[in-house]
C-alpha cells in the first residue's frame, strides 16, 4: 500500500539544493557573497588566477605544478566537508547514505552553482578502481593559457582530496586531457597513487586519455577521448 499521507506530510521532498537563485545569497551591505548556508563565497577574477600561475611559475619553475596540486588538495578537502554538511542538513541523512544518482547530481549542480564550469562523473571503471571526471569551461585551464601538457593541477588536487574524503582511502588524481592543450574538455583519472603511475608516465610520453585508460583497464573499450 502506498503511503500518500506520509509522503504529503513530510517536511519537504528533497530536490536540487544548488539551484542558483536559491544557493547564491549575499549580505550585500557588508559586501559579502554567501551560500544559502551562510558560508562566504568569493568571485575570483580571471586575471588574478593568471597572476597566480605566472607568479608561482616564475618563483618555483617546475615545482609549480606540485604546489598548485597541493593547493587543490587543501581546497578539495575543505570543499568536501562543506558539501557533506550541506547535503546532510538538506537531505536529512549522511552523504554516504545518499543514493548514487542524488550524490552525482548534487555534485554536478554544486560545481555549476560555484561558477566552476560543468563536470561529469564517469563510473564505468569503478570496479577496476578508477573514476573518470570530465570538466569543461575550467577557469584554471583557461588561466593557464596555451600548453602542451595538462595544466589544471589545482583541479586534479581537488578531485584527489575530494574522493579521498568520500571513500576513506588515500586516492590520487592524474589529469589526462586539458582544455589548455586543445582538448574539448579536461579529463581526470582518480585512483590509488600506485596504480596511477602508469598514467603519469603516459602523460610524460604524450599519450592520449584513451590510450592511458586502455593501459589502466586493458579489458575495457574506452570509446571516448
Amino acid at each position, binding site marked *: 500500500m502506498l503511503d*500518500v499521507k506520509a509522503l504529503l506530510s513530510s517536511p519537504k521532498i528533497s530536490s536540487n539544493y544548488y539551484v542558483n537563485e536559491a544557493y547564491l545569497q549575499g549580505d550585500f551591505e557588508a559586501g559579502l557573497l554567501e551560500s544559502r548556508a551562510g558560508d562566504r563565497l568569493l568571485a575570483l577574477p580571471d586575471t588574478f588566477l593568471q597572476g597566480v600561475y605566472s607568479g608561482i611559475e616564475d618563483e618555483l619553475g617546475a615545482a609549480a605544478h606540485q604546489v598548485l596540486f597541493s593547493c587543490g588538495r587543501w581546497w578539495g578537502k575543505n570543499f568536501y566537508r562543506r558539501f557533506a554538511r550541506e547535503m546532510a542538513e538538506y537531505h536529512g541523512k549522511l552523504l554516504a547514505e545518499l543514493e548514487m544518482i542524488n550524490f552525482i547530481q548534487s555534485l554536478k549542480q554544486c560545481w555549476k552553482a560555484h561558477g566552476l564550469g560543468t563536470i561529469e562523473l564517469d563510473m564505468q571503471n569503478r570496479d577496476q578502481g578508477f573514476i573518470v571526471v570530465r570538466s569543461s569551461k575550467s577557469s584554471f585551464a583557461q588561466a593557464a593559457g596555451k600548453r602542451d601538457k595538462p595544466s589544471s593541477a589545482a583541479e586534479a588536487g581537488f578531485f584527489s582530496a575530494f574522493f579521498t574524503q568520500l571513500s576513506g582511502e588515500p586516492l590520487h588524481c592524474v589529469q589526462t586531457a586539458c582544455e589548455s592543450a586543445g582538448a574539448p574538455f579536461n579529463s581526470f583519472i582518480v585512483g590509488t597513487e600506485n596504480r596511477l603511475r602508469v598514467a603519469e608516465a603516459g602523460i610524460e610520453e604524450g599519450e592520449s586519455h584513451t590510450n592511458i585508460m586502455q593501459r589502466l583497464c586493458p579489458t575495457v573499450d574506452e570509446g571516448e577521448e
Partner: protein
Amino acid sequence: MIDKLNLLFHAAEESYLQDSDLQTFETLIDSLEDRLNLYEKLRDMEEKLAQRLALNLQEGYPSEPPRRLQLALQNHVLIMRYCSMAMLIDDRDFLKYRLLEWLTEVVAAHDLQEIQNSLYRFMQKRLKKFLSSAERELIDPYLQLTKEMMLDQPAPEIALQL
C-alpha cells in the same frame, strides 16, 4: 514573466516605462487572480489526486516493487508542486532549471520513465474532470514542458554509467 519584470526593474534608470512595458505588468495582474485561484484549487486537491493516482499505480503495476511506485509518486507530487508554482508566477525557467534539469536524470537513473509517463496520463484524465478548460490552459504549458523534457526524451547516458 518574473524575468520580464526584472528587466523592467533594471531599466528604471533609463526612463519611465513605455506603454508596451506597462502592458507586461497589466497582463500579469489581469491573470493573477485566475492563477491564484487555480493554485489554491490544485493545492487543495493534492491529497485526493495523489490518493487516486496511488490506486491507479497499484492497479496498473501489481508486480512492481512498492518502493519504486512510491518513488514515482513522490516525483509526481514534486512535479505538480513545481508546475503549480511556475504557473502562479508565470515562469517556465523556474520549472526548467529548478526541477526538470535535476529530476530528468534521477528518473532515468531509476528507470522510472514508463511509470512516470503513466502517472502523467492518469493525472491528465483527472485534471480534465476537475479543471475548466480556461484553468487547463493556464497549467498546460508547464505540464507540457515537463513531458517534453522528462518523459519524451531517451534516457540520458548517465543511466548506463551507474
